[in-house]
């Protein structure tokens, strides 16, 4: 196998999508040729780096795309990488692909950088003949990234917290309005955990399956550590059944109606203090990052 050519993991293009949010195209044929919508990669930026899981946002021949928002040390370091530089490690594709089938009418919801993750799913759903209604949301108009890449959608609704574009409100408001017109057969929702939780509540009330893509903390990404485990709780009649699933190999997509959100969100916070410490130390080293 030709190691040099096939997966040298070099950044071939980088684009700033909004403040602190970047798009990267990276050469890795193994990822680009095999990736299906919903799958993710794990990246490392250096010898001392964490293993960072990120959803694959598109592929093109020998390249794949990711979109990253700088929120902590690892993601900031990642966003500071430039064209021509390689990643230390790239592993993928990982996780189960989205269940792309013909459902009829589908609502696809993307919030923040989740918009990048939802794009290939929405496209694939359209390609198999679904009516795809897309709802995108962010704080303000400029943070609604990649909105030009949804021309295939049967309907595109934009929601902004500050009302600078589309509906003033969250994607949940957009969803509720959409449901007043017609209810879909299935929903996809990808974004911050709280957003996925709230959209799942709406889906539950309306008794519609909703796929959410869980961004759990992971180490290996191949089912070996169990750190990414999530509790699923199904209530049927008088019985409650619970099961533990691994996001990396059983997911990352689960029906959000059954995700036990409280523990999921609390597990996302488990290294909050350490993350803060690492980020502060990093900022001391690199200085002002307001330009990012």
């Amino acid at each position: 196998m030709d190691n040099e050519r096939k997966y040298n993991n070099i950044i071939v293009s980088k684009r700033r999508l909004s403040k602190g949010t970047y798009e990267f195209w990276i050469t890795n044929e193994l990822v680009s040729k095999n990736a299906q919508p919903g799958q993710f990669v794990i990246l490392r930026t250096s010898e001392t780096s964490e293993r960072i899981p990120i959803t694959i946002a598109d592929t093109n021949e020998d390249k794949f795309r990711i979109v990253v928002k700088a929120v902590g040390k690892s993601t900031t370091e990642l966003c500071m990488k430039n064209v021509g530089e390689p990643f230390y490690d790239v592993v993928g594709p990982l996780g189960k692909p989205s269940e792309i089938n013909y459902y009829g009418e589908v609502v696809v919801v993307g919030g923040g950088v989740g918009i990048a993750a939802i794009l290939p799913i929405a496209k694939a759903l359209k390609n198999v003949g679904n009516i795809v209604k897309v709802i995108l949301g962010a704080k303000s108009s400029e943070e609604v990234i990649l909105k030009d890449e949804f021309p295939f959608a049967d309907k595109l609704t934009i929601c902004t917290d500050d009302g600078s574009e589309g509906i003033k409100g969250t994607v949940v408001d957009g969803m509720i309005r959409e449901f007043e017109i017609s209810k879909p057969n299935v929903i996809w929702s990808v974004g911050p955990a709280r957003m996925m939780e709230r959209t799942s509540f709406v889906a539950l009330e309306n008794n519609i399956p909703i796929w959410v893509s869980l961004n759990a903390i992971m180490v290996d990404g191949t089912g070996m550590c169990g750190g990414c485990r999530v509790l699923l709780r199904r209530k049927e009649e008088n019985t409650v059944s619970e099961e533990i699933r691994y996001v990396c190999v059983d997911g990352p997509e689960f029906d959000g109606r059954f995700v036990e959100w409280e523990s999921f969100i609390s597990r996302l916070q488990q290294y909050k203090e350490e993350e803060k410490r690492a980020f502060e130390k990093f900022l001391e080293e690199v200085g002002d990052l307001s330009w990012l």
Partner: protein
Amino acid sequence: MAVRDRIPVPELEPDIRKHSFSEVSLGYTLEIAQEEAKRCLQCKIPTCISGCPVGIDIPGFIKEIVAGNIEKSFRILKSQNYLPAICGRVCPQEVQCEGACVLNKIGKPVNIGALERFVADFAQAQGWSNSNNSETLYKTESKNNISKKVAVVGSGPAGLTVAFELGKIGISVDLYEALHEFGGVLVYGIPEFRLPKDIVKREITALEELGVNFFKNIPIGYAIHPRELMEKYDAIFIGVGAGTPKFMGISGSELNGVYSANEFLTRVNLMKAYKFPEYDTPIRVGKRVVVIGGGNTAMDAARSALRLGAKVTVVYRRTEAEMPARRAEVHHAKEEGIEFLFLTNPVRYLGNEHGKLAGVECIKMELGEPDESGRRKPLPLPDSNFIIEADVVIEAIGTESNRFLLSQFPDLKTNKYGYIVTNEYGQTSIPKVFAGGDIVTGSATVILAMGAGKKAAEGIVKFLLE
């Protein structure tokens, strides 16, 4: 004939090693090794060899130590065991070679493990194990130069052994690893203080020099479909281990602070979380850690947590006599100040209002009738519940079949536990696919995986020549 006492291996003092990930056992010097080697009775019918899963000529390599011919000793070792520096350190010798040593009848067995390690380390220091010498080292091997290609999936002890056995007779081997380091459990599981990672690295380097092609970061099944491997290679070996951790499944398992031993050890060993924030991957130990289980993994987790600054209690549902861990590890753990609660089992985890672990509710156990494993079955004593306050709990209760690759390989026949079914040569239900190690037997030891790798390599060669 009077037999001298077994000579203990020099070790770091417990007070020093409690704060350090440096290797605990310091190993024999040449002089001490020769003294210990002289204790070997050179039995005509050596029982020790029957206790060795890879059949090392144990009296043979020991005899050469006495004679001062360490290079010859090393060749004898290496001809049967590809990884002596590793096996000398991590094999459960007390139930293998040393357990079968005749000296047990009158005293303590020969310290075969320490002698094996001595020879391997001595050879490394002399530079005998690198490529310049591999020609002479393996000159007994016929260079068939079979022009066939074999893929090895997984770079743990089984995969490395297969790569070595095939590589040394000139078969082209491509070895695939999903993680970013090679060595499998040797790098993510076993801690630095028991097996320094440099030793694993140099074994990998030696294999590279033998001509084995290494590919990391490749999740076979996802990045390369098994179908593609089947087309591209003349044979495939699967040695992906039994890496999926089991959980007790008791209430509170989702709390922050509840780790599987696999996660805890992977963070510490592979990701070097003990060097946080120099390394980015964090780990939590808090003040008090409870480790559940009685195997080597439990000891590794407990001793790692101790080194990260916690007070550690090991909770085991049977008694010390039933503990599956190597005797030396239990002894080391006790010396370092780890507390053991035997006949105790956790029943639920208690959390605080932030979703963080606060304590472990346990119940006392007693031993009943022997179960199918032959060990007496632990039974809970009613109304004996008590709570241990804890910031972190680490479950080390075993692992199961990793479905990661197998889910993409549905034609491969597995048993009811999800392990691959093979014949004695590791051949699976698909003739060109072989398997060995934990993915066949379930969680076992490094040396058994290596034994399986040797057997499978034999099977592969036979298959390729047919």
